[in-house]
């Protein structure tokens, strides 16, 4: 397998908290390289400082590569440059909306749209939601509560 095929294979690794998103959608997967001896180096970057998914993802990455016959894998965590929600792919944003989570905005002056009825009149219930990356909002039109993936 080439390095780019390995990169594609790692698309199978999903975020345990938001299983519709792969680590590539999230922008967590930064780089995959191969050493001359066949060992693989995967570079990832943490989302939130305290994101508890990172350890889980590290194990998942090793498992996926093992299934593709690579048993010498090093997963490196890089902090520079720091992760931002701007790295989330357009496909990732669409998947989030479909999943019922309002995606992070590219322009924070834009309205946060209800992922269920697409209405723009929504209000904040709590800045801290079920996970570090989400805030809790409610739609003024359909009345449904929903999570908003915060801009970071």
């Amino acid at each position, binding site marked *: 397998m080439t390095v780019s095929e390995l990169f594609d294979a790692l698309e199978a690794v999903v975020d345990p908290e938001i299983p519709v998103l792969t680590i590539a959608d999230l922008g967590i997967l930064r780089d995959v390289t191969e050493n001359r001896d066949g060992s693989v180096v995967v570079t990832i970057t*943490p989302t*939130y*400082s*305290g*994101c*508890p998914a990172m350890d889980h993802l590290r194990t998942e990455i090793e498992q996926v590569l093992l299934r593709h016959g690579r048993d010498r894998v090093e997963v490196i965590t*890089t*902090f*520079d*440059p*720091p*992760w931002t929600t701007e790295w989330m792919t357009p496909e990732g944003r669409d998947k989030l909306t479909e999943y019922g989570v309002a995606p992070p905005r590219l322009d924070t002056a834009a309205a946060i749209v209800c992922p269920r009825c697409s209405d723009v009149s929504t209000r904040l*219930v*709590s*800045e*801290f*939601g*079920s996970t*570090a990356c989400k805030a*809790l909002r409610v739609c003024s039109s359909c009345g449904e509560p929903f999570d908003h993936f915060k801009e*970071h």
Partner: protein
Amino acid sequence: MKALAEYVIRHADDNLILAQRLSEYVAHAPELEEDLAIANIALDHLGVATHLLNYAAALIGDDRTGDDLAFLRNEREFTNLLLVEQPNGDFAHIIVRQFLFDAYQHALWPMLSRSTDSTVAGIAGKAAKEAAYHVRHSRGWLIRLGDGTRESHTRTQTAVDDLWRFVDELFAGDDLDTEMATAGIGAAPAQLRAAWDTTVDSVLSEATLSRGAEESVRLGGRTGFHTEHLGHLLAEMQWMQRAYPGLEW
């Protein structure tokens, strides 16, 4: 120990000890949303501490891990600020402690995000965004409580008066701070004071609260001389690794 490792550890310790204090409070907050907020904020602090301790462990280069630094150091080896180890009082007390520290980190992380050390800069860049969230949260509560009922005002002012003796330590600085600031790696604590004063004074004023008295200033955290509370906190935090060394689950 290398100066950089020592510098990284003091900031890790601030976040680790405050994370532990906040975690003690989980399930005791006055409302469900606030409980989630406290838990999330604790997690942010714990995350920053973990990244910094892992980095420090790599810098030290012996066989200790970041976890070893958290769970196997003694009280005198912790170099956190005294403010963050102060025990949880009522909700007002927790919010005041948090606000005083949030305002400090809100000034600190943007400066460290320009560190010449790329790992410190990366961790600080992420933490800066989180600190902006945290200070917005604690600021909001401080105003609600200070400018609330007579009871909430009294309790909040009492907390400010009680915790004010630990404020000067945030900006005291020592030779290590100077060395790191000169090298472009760290921030001189005294330089953070102006931004902190502006934030704190405007919020205290909006909350109809006043500063505490500038007396009985307490220092010592950065050299490992702590208040009596840290030992008890560590006893609980480190108990399992001390009783069952190397335990994993």
